[in-house]
């Protein structure tokens, strides 16, 4: 999953066919892939029109399609590179919840690259702070909060304490 998911989607395929693309690329016949994609979208509550083309969808919907295309392949590992950088706040929260539920449902291991501390803490079980170039691991923070998580977590005291710790380490690194 790349930051510029709008390049990744195929503009000549509908939302459903974009999701099915992940399966067809693995050699699954078109009709079977479409049925699997549709049931995957049903299961995960994707409720916008599936026969729309990407340019007829909102940015958040486009990203949902891109994410579904990846997850429908049932990967063992998923790498998300700054996935929500271009979303507004509401869409970002929505996508974060969707990612967590998709990943938890599939049992995949997910690595997220992000510069947003809240996002990292909300999504992860462990946060690794990277240094300036050349990047190396500066510090690891276990993130103990129970799943399923809700965004109310962001307003809690434990969250604030951990966040403070991470930001302090971050400031130390950039000022070093």
């Amino acid at each position: 999953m790349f930051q510029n998911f709008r390049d990744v989607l195929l503009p000549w395929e509908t939302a459903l066919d974009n999701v099915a693309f992940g399966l067809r690329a693995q050699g699954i016949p078109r009709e079977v892939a479409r049925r699997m994609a549709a049931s995957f979208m049903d299961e995960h509550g994707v409720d916008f029109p599936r026969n729309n083309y990407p340019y007829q969808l909102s940015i958040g919907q486009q990203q949902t399609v891109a994410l579904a295309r990846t997850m429908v392949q049932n990967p063992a590992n998923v790498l998300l590179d700054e996935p929500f950088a271009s979303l507004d706040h509401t869409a970002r929260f929505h996508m974060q919840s969707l990612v967590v539920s998709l990943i938890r449902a599939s049992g995949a291991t997910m690595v997220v690259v992000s510069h947003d501390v809240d996002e990292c803490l909300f999504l992860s079980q462990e946060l690794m702070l990277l240094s300036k170039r050349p990047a190396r691991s500066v510090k690891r923070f276990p993130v103990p909060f129970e799943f399923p998580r809700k965004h109310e977590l962001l307003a809690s005291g434990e969250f604030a304490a951990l966040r403070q710790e991470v930001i302090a380490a971050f400031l130390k690194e950039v000022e070093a």
Partner: protein
Amino acid sequence: MKWRMLIGPAVVLLLWTVVTTAGLVRPIFLPPPQQVFHALYLLAADGTLWVDSGATLYRTGVAFLVAAIVGLLIGVPLGISARLYESFEVVFAFFRSMPSPALVPLAMLLFGISNLARISVAAFTCSLINAIQGAYAVRQIPRHRVLAARLAGAGGAFLLTRVLIPSALPGVVAGWRITLSLSLIIIVVTEMFIGTRSGLGMRIYDFHLMFRSADMYAVILVVGIMGYALNKGVEVAESRLVHWSGKF
């Protein structure tokens, strides 16, 4: 169709009628519309109009098709290899920018006074435009789209037909839109200068030499309608074939 689209043509027709019937211009320069439409009717009735239109359309069509094929054959390799593109960029830009009528005498020298001479001039310039469009379209394929498709497991013929070709298609089709109009333009010009007994360009020039202004205007009108129809047709085809072109 929106009815307002008819206002512009109606105004032009009205002005034309007023100016000519009031005697503001001599009929040799601008005959009144009824004379032009009558001339058009006679040309259509005795068949010359259809022969001329057919000849012009045929030449335009052949030039367009040849240019579309040659343009792809040249453009795709240029798009794939950045080195090749850089090596030949100047040459292509030079010949593409050259006004094609400059090549008419050369074409006559090489191919004689023939359809081949006319078509080759149009096809040459249009091939280069298609080649540059095609090369650009291939170079502009989003890198991340291909990378993500490969990561998803796509490769070989599937990657080519499902990702690469549709990605390049809008740019290639844009080239076809430009070159269809341009083919008609160049063909009509060459018909005036490379001797022939048919073709709308030749007919316009003939009527001009004979001071038959109403007939000349009638044929000009036909060329105009032909150009407009080709443009509209290609626009409709484009919006169907590559409906996603230019949208995000």
